[in-house]
């Protein structure tokens, strides 16, 4: 039902240039997309909002290319993933600082330190691609096949990233007493 509603909204944007229909899509998906970026940037809310905004603008300008071969959310996550990796690439080009150091910087910049801190600390132990796979799988409930479509690699590779990510997370959580909860 939700998928049909999305298609109807997309059609209204493409055919009638109905900005209100796009507004509905933004309102519906702003939370998962911003959460996705918050997890990728380890809690940097300003950066996450900028990247999320870029994602929605790209989605709007390319909405005619949405062929309904996947869910609208999967298509949107794919754009978000590309936006994030474009950002990572540009950051690596402009800065010699090691990625992990930048991650650590972002970690201290975050606003809502506290209960979220553990999530970001745990995600910091993962490589970027592992972080993407793990957060999509565990937090956004995206299937392995869809993650493969989002990051553009075979399902087997996603499983490997997930497996390595899970091992690191399990170690982190056990060290922090989560196995006793």
């Amino acid at each position: 039902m939700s998928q049909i509603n999305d298609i109807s909204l997309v059609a209204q944007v493409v055919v009638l240039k109905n900005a209100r229909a796009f507004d509905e899509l933004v309102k519906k998906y702003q939370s998962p997309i911003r959460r996705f970026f918050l997890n990728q940037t380890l809690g940097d809310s300003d950066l996450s909002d900028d990247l999320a905004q870029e994602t929605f603008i790209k989605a709007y300008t390319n909405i005619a290319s949405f062929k309904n071969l996947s869910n609208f959310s999967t298509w949107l996550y794919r754009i978000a993933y590309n936006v994030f990796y474009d950002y990572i690439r540009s950051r690596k080009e402009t800065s010699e600082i090691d990625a992990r150091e930048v991650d650590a910087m972002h970690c201290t910049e975050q606003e809502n330190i506290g209960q979220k801190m553990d999530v970001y600390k745990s995600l910091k132990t993962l490589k970027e691609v592992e972080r993407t796979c793990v957060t999509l799988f565990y937090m956004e409930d995206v299937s392995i096949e869809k993650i493969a479509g989002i990051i553009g690699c075979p399902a087997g590779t996603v499983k490997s990233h997930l497996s390595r990510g899970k091992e690191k997370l399990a170690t982190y959580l056990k060290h922090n007493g989560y196995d006793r909860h």
Partner: protein
Amino acid sequence: MTDIDDKMISQFFQTEKKEVKDNGFSRRVMRNLPDRGEKLSNIWVAFCSAIGIILFFLFDGLEALLNILHEAFNGAIQSGIAHIDIKSLLIVTIVLISIGVKKVCHIE
């Protein structure tokens, strides 16, 4: 990697999964859509055109225009149609016809 670990990770993320409040984000996105500037400029053009048309009729623009045309026509006749060079007029007519034909062919 055990099922218990898997469950522990799943539980950890599910409990930390929170809705991100909009807080004006959607409005900001909608304000920054590329098409919006174009739309605003179209609205502005339409508004200015409407004002122009209203002012045109309000100040008897049609009558003024007809007067100007009438005066120009009379002036041309009075200044002596004899001074018009027939050769030049013919060349201008041929050039205009050829441009018109080219345009029509291009459209087709």
